[in-house]
């Protein structure tokens, strides 16, 4: 178990419907995380703590390392310096630890990455059946409940290629949730979607946030951040430039770079 920092003070303006439990030890701890691609220094000492039930939004210009960082949290990328501890398990070269972490952490990708040779239902039940070793019937019942929650139960027997982008992304969310994760990571979940489909995906993400799921979301959807984020982190050039509650970030950003970036994306 990691030692929780005892000096942490919760953010000032806590939103009423927040489920973040700041009195508990953080569920994700990243300390001084570095990552290089060849000679390119992609992450330059990222430190961050995420508390159970918290919704964290990471934003910043492209190439700032936001995707790289959340992909380090479930070891799709390997960090080369520093520590990452997820729910008490440190990510090292130990395969057992990596497997344990991946079971607790669900991930949703920009490009959906559904399995095109499996039906929607098979996509969602794959993890529970083969990783959690559930019987097929139970896995299918849970999958149907999730698809209903996502608003697409009637698509269960179609193939991913027959669905719209928004529907595919909701299937991907259901697939991640089927593993009963403690944490959900979203890597630009709406960036590959047509404008009219962004809302349907954001709606289920907002619903998920309000149900108390711990979420780390890389996104440029500032409406989503305003609605449900507990804290926001602004990344630039592999570093955390500024962090704070949405109120702080939107109304009184301290750093010049944050102001500039916000003015560009908020018009």
């Amino acid at each position, binding site marked *: 178990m990691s030692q929780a920092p005892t000096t942490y003070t919760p953010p000032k303006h806590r939103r009423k419907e927040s489920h973040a439990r700041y009195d508990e030890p953080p569920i994700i701890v990243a300390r001084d995380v570095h990552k290089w691609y060849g000679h390119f220094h992609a992450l330059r000492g990222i430190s961050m703590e995420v508390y159970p039930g918290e919704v964290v939004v990471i934003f910043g210009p492209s190439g700032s390392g936001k995707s790289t960082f959340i992909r380090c949290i479930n070891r*799709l990328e390997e960090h080369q310096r520093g520590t990452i501890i997820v729910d008490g398990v440190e990510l090292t070269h130990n395969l057992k630890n990596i497997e344990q972490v991946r079971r607790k952490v669900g991930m949703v990708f920009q490009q959906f990455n559904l399995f095109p040779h499996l*039906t929607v239902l098979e996509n969602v039940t794959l993890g529970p059946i083969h990783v959690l070793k559930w019987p097929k019937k139970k896995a299918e019942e849970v999958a149907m409940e999730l698809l209903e929650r996502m608003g697409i139960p009637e698509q269960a027997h179609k193939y991913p290629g027959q669905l719209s982008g928004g529907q595919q992304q909701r299937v991907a969310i259901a697939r991640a949730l089927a593993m009963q994760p403690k944490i959900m990571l979203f890597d630009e979940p709406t960036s590959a979607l047509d404008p009219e489909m962004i809302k349907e995906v954001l709606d289920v993400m907002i619903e998920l946030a309000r149900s108390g799921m711990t979420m780390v979301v890389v996104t440029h959807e500032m409406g989503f951040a305003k609605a449900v984020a507990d804290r926001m982190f602004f990344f630039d050039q592999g570093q955390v430039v500024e962090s704070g509650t949405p109120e702080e970030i939107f109304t009184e950003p301290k750093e010049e770079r944050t102001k500039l970036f916000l003015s560009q994306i908020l018009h």
Partner: protein
Amino acid sequence: MERPLAPGETLPPPTERITILGWIYRNLLSPWYNAVLTVLGLALAYALLTPILRWALTQAEWQVVVVNLRLFMVGQYPKEALWRVWLLLYLLSLTAGWSWGVLLGKRYATAGLVLLGAFIGLAVLPFAPALRLRWFTLALTALGAWALAYRWRETGWARKVAFALLLLYFPIVIIVIRGFAGWDRARQLWAALYLTGVLAGLVVGMWRPEQRWPAARWGQFGLFLVPLALAVLPGFVAWRFPLVGLAAVTWAAWLTGRSNPTTLKGFARVLVGLYLPLLFLLYQMGPSGILTRAMPQVGTNLWGGLLLTFLLTIVGIVFSFPLGILLALGRRSVMPIIRVFSILYIEFIRGVPLVTVLFMAQVMLPLFLPPGMTIDRVLRAMAGIVLFAAAYMAENVRGGLQAIPKGQYEAAYALGLNAFQTMTLIILPQALRNVIPVIVNQFIALFKDTSLVAIVGLFDLLGIASTVLAQPQFIGKQREVYTFIGLIYWIFSYGMSYTSRQIEKALGVGER
């Protein structure tokens, strides 16, 4: 008639009036240079086909084929054992008909009717009059199996029977064609011990007795520790290797049983049910057993003709396919030794013609075997073909693997699947589907390449052709003989190609 459409109103697509003359005009005669090409093409076809047809129907003496039909089909396979080939053909009819009825139902009815028609045609035409009844009953068997299977296609057992038939057909072919050499008692005993070891390991592994009796936690290791301990004892020196093998097999079965008890349940139940019948069959494999007397061994030197061609092809396909997949994965492995070995193997084999590999298998393979151990010629040829085909298969599969986007691996890993599950559940199914045309292409090439074994002295279809042509009464009948075997090669190659296209279509359902 021109009016704006109401909201939501749709129109049917415009229908085209297609008449035969219209089709001919549009596709063959317009514009003018198409007409010229059509006329030229027809003239060319006429110039090529008429001499061939005139020869085939009026001048050719097909007697050489009719008289030597058995030779072409099975080579020197003994006449008194021919019933085994027929038995396998009936079993093939049954398997094909049954699995078609269960898995395909009424789909591809045209292809099915063409196949049935071919058999009935063989029965009706004066091709091999003595076999009329056989062809006819073969067609009836397939049709009957199809009808019964279609009737019960919804039931679980019908599906299980279909899969069992499909899986077991190939091993049964090898066993029945080869026959039984008459094992001595010691060999039978060892086989029985191995069978028992596998079964016991599997059942104990699945059952996990330590959950009921804590004492059994270590007790179950006795399963493989006892044979291992016996192997160390001085009194059992002669049986050291078989004992260690027994322990290893039992241990592997035990691990398998423990790893996945739920999916193995049905399999284990079938195995337990078959235990006593298998022991009985094993007993009958003795020197005076029923099996040995009914189906005495037929040496591979007597295998020949189309039968040998088929056996070489099937063995080549069945073994080179998994071997090729392993090599393809090995070539992409992160472990340098495995990767380098795979690359060396693939590049070495690809740089050498098949004939060389076959010669090597004949003359070099014995160097790697312990002295006194021999492998017969057919088996050596099979090994050569498998090793050769595996290298090409590996490259085909690698092409499929490279086409899979990185996101598929990431999604699988993020779900918590391990590397093996990711490969077997996510990557390979997609990769292999993408390369079906290439793989079938290779299977067709393999089927035709088996004719090269004639060079190393085996009598496959082509090898038999040369012996037939050496018969004094049929000297100079090359045209007839080579046309006949060419036709046989074409029929089966086209069959494979047609099947692969249907598989592609069927697997493409719901795909972008």
